[in-house]
């Protein structure tokens, strides 16, 4: 566990120093600027921000897993085993995604107007922010899941990585029964109705799904060579 923590830190530092975090961050900032206007209702903006965060998190997984040249990765694998190295990369991407989620919720709170649509009942800001944060976290968890599925070692052919991540992200966002879909559409519906509830069950489901996929990809990392 301590080694996984050290590997997470290693990958985070690699992302920060190597500027691997910058492209997903800039893309996310751009999408938020395009999609949210100052003075819009908070809940609608949070729904949009959470939805867009899913493919962005998948991208940060791609950055984290590909930031390292094979030879220095080999040194880490020798030290800690391939499964822990894979988990470290995924946890680093998850951390980047969660930081983006917090920044997104804070930024939207700052620029937005009323909490819900002006004609609806106005729910309290605190609960709305919590709901937005949890929905964003659901998106980050499932985005990391998509990233784990669309990169080495699960997807061996690198050239299909980006198209399959985009397709799978869209599918996870629109598929009925998907926790991301439920969390995001919950926010959008709350903006219209003014009745908001934090998506705890969706968060639990997303965390469980990610844990299963991450464990699977870590196990696979030990089986498939570089």
């Amino acid at each position, binding site marked *: 566990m301590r080694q996984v923590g050290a590997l997470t*830190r290693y990958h985070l530092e690699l992302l920060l120093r190597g500027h691997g975090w910058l492209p997903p961050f800039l893309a996310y900032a751009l999408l938020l600027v395009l999609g949210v206007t100052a003075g819009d209702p908070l809940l609608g903006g949070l729904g949009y921000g959470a939805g867009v965060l899913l493919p962005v998190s998948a991208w940060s997984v791609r950055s984290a897993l590909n930031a390292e040249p094979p030879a*220095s990765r*080999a*040194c880490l694998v020798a030290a800690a085993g391939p499964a822990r190295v894979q988990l470290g990369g995924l946890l680093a991407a998850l951390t980047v995604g969660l930081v983006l989620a917090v920044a997104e919720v804070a930024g939207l709170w700052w620029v937005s107007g009323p909490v819900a649509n002006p004609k609806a009942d106005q729910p309290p800001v605190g609960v709305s922010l919590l709901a937005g944060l949890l929905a964003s976290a659901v998106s980050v968890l499932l985005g990391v899941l998509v990233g784990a599925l669309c990169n080495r070692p699960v997807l061996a052919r690198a050239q299909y990585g980006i198209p399959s991540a985009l397709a799978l992200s869209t599918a996870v966002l629109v598929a009925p029964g998907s926790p991301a879909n439920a969390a995001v559409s919950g926010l959008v519906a709350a903006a219209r109705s003014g009745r908001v509830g934090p998506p705890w069950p969706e968060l639990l489901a997303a965390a469980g799904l990610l844990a299963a996929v991450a464990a699977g990809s870590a196990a696979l990392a030990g089986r498939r060579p570089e």
Partner: protein
Amino acid sequence: MELTGVGKRYGRGGRWVLRGVDLAVRPGELVRIAGANGTGKSTLLRLVAGIERPSAGRVVRPGAVAYVPERFPPALPFDAASYLLRVGRVHGLAAAEARRRAGEWLDRFGIADRAGTPLSRLSKGTCQKVAVAQALLPGARVLLLDEAWTGLDPAARTVLDEAAAERAAGGGAVLFVDHDPARLAGLTTAAYRVGEDGGLRPAEERAVRADGPPVEVDVDVDVDVVDGDPLPARLPGAPDVTVLEGTAVRLTVAAAHSDALLRRLLTGRPAVSVLAVRRREGER
């Protein structure tokens, strides 16, 4: 560390790079793997490191492995000191300890002044020193050196020679590949050759000297074993031991190994104090 019936091929129906390899390396052993280019020496080390999975057979590792890859990339965005710190942490060292050892190894390789320089701006040789330091710093039970000497200057090669001997003397298992047949001569406990067919066979170690006829200069190291404890069985250069009066002992060793021997005596157990070091007159 043990390999049983290990085979490796890339893809179904591919050529067997290694086949039927049985190899056991016990603590304290320093083992050379020889073979022509492209015969699978690097693949063997990568299998031991757990970077690749064998297509057949089993690899058993006693614990963490430190590995120096054949080509270390300068494409990492770290500076030398923070890279070593991070790798030390991955090996399970506490931050303060990892930082201390990183400084120690940078110092030993004479690049302490470049600790804060990004790896991408270091020369190829300096970068190789960092690559070697990341493997030596954790003190792992198994040390794998894949042509780690290539690109190092003579002083750094000596440091690495000493470090490899020290690691074996300290109870580690060291496995190395190098093109210089005189590399670690006199210290290797076994040597194997990878054949064209992928098989691993014992190779006779000839006493090859890199330059001219063998010139053996011996050094006497007189030490006082403070507590009277026995000296370790395996010391660098396999010195001849003569008991002097009291707890004092004279160790006679070839000059090439005297530095490694002294370092081992001073840093290891039992605690000793050095009484005298002198060059012995005449032939051994």
